[in-house]
């Protein structure tokens, strides 16, 4: 949301894009200590899905310029709206605590895309499902990110949660990790091109570091259904912004 806000207030898009990506990386990095302590990031799922997303992003970067901004913005608006409805409609929790499990199984399970995390004193097991459909969605999110120059997190979290049936807390933490990788790779290229302005970059970085810490602490206080509803509202806001921009 930072990039549209900057562009609307008169910042050139070429300056706003790296600042937006710095905010994404800083937010991702700020959330890391807390998420590693809580063990809600599934790195194996993250790397697996990121391979698909990065492949899509490379293809998207090569296609960039051949599709109009207006079409991309409207397409993104529809995707965000569908993701909002899918997450908002679902009631209760899909993955329930298993009373037979103890702390020894918390974390990601070696050699698999399964794991368990702690929730309200219980242990919730999960396993990634519908792998190929999920990877297709990740490739599409990467393709769109590559074409439009955005992070794509608003597609990745719902795709991980609603298509691959990963609990929303694990999906959100894992997406926070993966969008950091995507944005970091893009920023290295921008740095080589001299597109990063250190002074403004540092201001955005400090703001995002603080915001990332606060967001991660708030996430720990709310139940998955509340997080899902907040995410749905944010997606509808994103959808409206994209439709207006388109």
């Amino acid at each position: 949301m930072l990039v549209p806000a900057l562009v609307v207030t008169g910042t050139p898009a070429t300056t706003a894009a790296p600042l937006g990506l710095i905010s994404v990386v800083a937010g991702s990095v700020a959330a890391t200590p807390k998420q590693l302590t809580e063990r809600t990031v599934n790195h194996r799922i993250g790397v697996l899905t990121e391979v698909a997303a990065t492949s899509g992003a490379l293809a998207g970067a090569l296609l960039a310029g051949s599709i109009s901004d207006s079409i991309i913005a409207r397409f993104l608006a529809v995707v965000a709206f569908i993701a909002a409805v899918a997450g908002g409609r679902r009631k209760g929790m899909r993955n329930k605590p298993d009373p037979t499990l103890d702390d020894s199984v918390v974390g990601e399970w070696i050699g698999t895309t399964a794991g368990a995390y702690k929730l309200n004193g219980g242990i919730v097991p999960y396993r990634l499902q519908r792998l190929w459909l999920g990877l297709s969605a990740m490739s599409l999110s990467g393709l769109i990110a590559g074409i439009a120059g955005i992070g794509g997190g608003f597609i990745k979290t719902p795709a991980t949660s609603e298509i691959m049936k990963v609990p929303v807390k694990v999906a959100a933490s894992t997406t926070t990790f993966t969008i950091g990788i995507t944005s970091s790779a893009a920023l290295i290229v921008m740095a080589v091109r001299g597109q990063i302005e250190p002074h403004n970059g540092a201001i955005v970085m400090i703001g995002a570091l603080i915001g990332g810490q606060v967001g991660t602490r708030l996430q720990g206080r709310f139940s998955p259904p509340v997080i899902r509803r907040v995410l749905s509202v944010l997606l509808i806001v994103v959808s409206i912004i994209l439709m207006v921009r388109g």
Partner: protein
Amino acid sequence: MADDADERRIDVGQADREAVLGRIVGKVVLVAAVLGAVGILLGDGSGDAIAGIAVGAVIALPLLRVVWLVATWKRQRDGRFVVLGVVLLTLVVVGFVLALLRR
């Protein structure tokens, strides 16, 4: 779901290693934030250089984390995910090279 006990193979030391990584990242973030603030306050050429180092440190962290993961999975003999991690890092390098060539 997840009813196969054999599947629940956990590296017992991994939680501690992730906690250490988390603390290191937290310290780097703190140092980067302080350096960034100093760079902003100085505001001149040296300020920009300091701010650039701070931003660069934060940008490098996610990719260094993937390198750390590949080393961790190699130690756990989780070959499939080692390959995936290497493929991901290779894709990042390919993207970087493609961008340089198209500059």
